[in-house]
């Protein structure tokens, strides 16, 4: 607890008119830790990410990066503070090559003001960085659209890590993937954590979250159901909470009554 958290979220709320999307959310992520944000559909996960990524502004509450209060006006601001977001669906430009995607927005250039892309450098760095994450890319000239879903996520993760992201926000990286592919992505998450990044891993799957997470925050209907360290909660409890514990028990009770009733 001695070192300051990389990113601290304090009492964040977001209102869209009279709709309360998020109310009073507090959590944090430290370097070399994975904070999992769990929640069912409509729990407010997307709103939460968009605030952290700088796409939306919170209505109430404060954000601290390395102990310093910040306010993001655009995704570029968030990026400049070392917060990189990898969205599940819009992580890459499918028709562009792997290396162009890897360096998109921050291409290494030569010849000064002409801003000519240093293709050889970009291509070899992309290949090496992907290899470090354990992704062996066949040809960095191939369009990203030809990679599998897991590989695409991994390209985006490797890219964020390479560009000095301190905090990596992953929006449901495993939701569209099969079991094996999900395992691959989870491995990259651990890899990123071991390299000293703080990771915020958003998911609705406690089986994916529990093995990699150090900290768990459960969202339900825009409110936090608690912020736990791994030692404080078991996977069963997490699953219970996540499914809305009490609701599930009531449902079970009603179902058994209905079955035995007739």
């Amino acid at each position, binding site marked *: 607890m001695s070192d300051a958290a990389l990113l601290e979220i304090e009492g964040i709320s977001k209102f869209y008119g009279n709709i309360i999307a998020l109310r009073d959310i507090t959590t944090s992520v430290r370097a070399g830790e994975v904070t999992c944000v769990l929640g069912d559909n409509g729990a407010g996960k997307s709103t939460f990410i968009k605030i952290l990524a700088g796409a939306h502004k919170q209505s109430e509450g404060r954000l601290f990066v390395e102990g310093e209060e910040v306010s993001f006006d655009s995704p570029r601001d968030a990026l400049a503070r070392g917060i990189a977001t990898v969205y599940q669906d819009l992580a890459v430009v499918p028709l562009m090559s792997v290396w*162009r995607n890897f360096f998109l927005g921050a291409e290494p250039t030569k010849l000064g003001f002409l801003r000519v892309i240093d293709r050889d450098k970009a291509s070899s760095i992309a290949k090496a960085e992907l290899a470090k994450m354990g992704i062996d890319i066949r040809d960095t000239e191939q369009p990203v659209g030809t990679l599998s879903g897991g590989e695409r996520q991994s390209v985006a993760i490797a890219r964020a890590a390479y560009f000095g992201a301190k905090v990596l926000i992953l929006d449901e990286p495993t939701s569209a993937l099969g079991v094996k592919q999900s395992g691959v992505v989870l491995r990259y998450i651990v890899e990123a954590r071991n390299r000293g990044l703080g990771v915020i891993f958003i998911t609705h799957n406690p089986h994916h979250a529990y093995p990699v997470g150090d900290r768990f925050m459960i969202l339900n209907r825009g409110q936090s159901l608690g912020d736990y360290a791994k030692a404080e909660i078991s996977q069963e409890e997490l699953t219970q909470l996540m499914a809305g514990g009490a609701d599930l028990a009531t449902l079970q009770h009603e179902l058994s009554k209905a079955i035995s009733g007739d």
Partner: protein
Amino acid sequence: MAAESSATSAAPADERLAYRGPVQRLLTRPEIGGLVGAGAIWIFFWSVSDVFGTTAGANNYLDVATSLGIMAIAVALLMIGGEFDLSSGAMTGATGMLVVLLVKDTGELGGLGLPLTIAIPITFLFAMGVGWVNGTLVEKTGLPSFIVTLGTFFVLRGGKLGFSKLFVDKVIVEGLDDAPDYDFWSNIFGSVWIRNDHIWDSFLGGRDVVFGVLATLGVAALAVGLMELSMVRRAQGDRPSMNSGMILLVIGLAAAAAGLVALTATDGTAANWIWSIVMAAGVLVSVVGYCTWRFEPSSGSAGGLSMGDGIGRRIGIGLGLVVVGTVLGVAMDSSNESVLGLLLTVQGLRAILFGGCVIVGVLMLLSAARDSEDSPVTRFATTALAGVSVAVVGFVIQAEAASRKYRAEFFAWMMAAAVVLLVVAVVRMRFDQRRQPDGEADRMGTLVSIIGIVLIVMAVATKLLWATTSELEQSRALITYRISILYFFAFAAVATWLLMRTKFGSWAFAVGGNKDASRQVGVPAARTKTQLFMTVSGASWLVGTLIAFRLNSVQANVGDGLEFFYIIAAVVGGNLLTGGYGSAAGAAIGALIMAMSFQGIPFAGWNSDWRFLFVGVILLLAVMVNNYVRGKAEKSR
């Protein structure tokens, strides 16, 4: 350890990567469909018109392609970025008109009487401003650019008419040469190069000799480069300094050269026969000699003559079509110009039947050859058959044709195609095709191929851009080249470089391909799109200024409605309407296709009322070819 690391570094190629030959790699370029189309259209009009294929024709369609092309390239950049600009056509007129109005000192209200040195930068700033407004409106409102720029289009259109009526009380503003420094600026924007004298008659034996030498060297270099790219090299130690291959190469080259010299010196049919065969044999022998010296011979496993299910049928139909076409061509009366209906003369019908049957027949043979990958003998036989068919048809044309154009030029090209097919057949049978990349050979092959292509382009430019005395005497008008052609070529080159090599180009592809993703990784999407809109309006400024200097006056309706032609040219050149894919060179080629289609129709002596029908067909064909080629390209990646 050391041995292990050297073993890994010695195998840079990834075994999961299938090696793609040079032709397949070329097919993945977006402009390839347009290039093939441009060639086909050129050949079509060349064959139906006497003037189209000459310098006068090139001068004519290049002039039209210039203003269309400069705009099409800019519009293509914007389309790659995922937006449209419908105000681009009206902008060309607006900038042209503005510069004239600024320099005029006559008229009731209008005319500040500025020198061009001030008026031209003001016009440029105006253009940049309109582009900025377009881009900013699209970005801030989130409305489709189609709607926003339709608005600016009407504003500009109305403004042009309104202001010209207000200031000069006419729908045309005249008198750019009122400006005191007109002479200086007209060197930059209005230079004309009149080709009624020519260095080529005395230079190195005349234009056609220069063309012939450049073209031969270019084709040879391209052939060497392509072979280097596609075949297995012999190992270093396995290459004796003076083996039979070198001797064959020398003998073959000598025979080919002798054939060429003799061919240009004789005009008798019998002699042509003999010398073309000598030349063809010489080329074949020299290529085989070169390959024996440099490449690994085929490792056997020839297999017998085998016909897969479709292949035998295709060979049969292909051969049949060639024969039927030839018989029809010989049997029908070539000088009968009586009309059969729907504009078609007996002569035209004969040309269509003959040409159609032969082209489809040869293509069927070639497709059969391509698909008989597993039986080298069948492949050899089919390719050679296609070559022989082309040669025979060439001789038939030479015997039948009335004009020298077919007897000499076309015949020569048919012979060249036949020789190429025969050489390909023999070389592919005798030598191994590469299946792995080979760094050194790839680099050298690419370099030599590029030299070959440059030489060929220089040869074509020599032939098309410079007239000889006799051609000048035949053509109706003076041949004049405007400086705008240089702007066109320069802009095409710069735009291609921008797209492929710079950050700006990468961002243009990114915002067109997936705007949200590029925003997320920090691409300034709004700024990039605004810059693209400003590129289009900047190009409009260039074209508008060129028009003003050309005509000395600008009508209020100049450019109105041309915006769709820019978009069509970009699409014909392989740019996707949905953004994220395309090329600037493709748009330039698209503009060339449009210009050739427009100008070719009057050259062919047809009623130009039909030109839009023709353009429509071209557009549909081009888009379908693009679609097909892109499908192939994406599969082969």
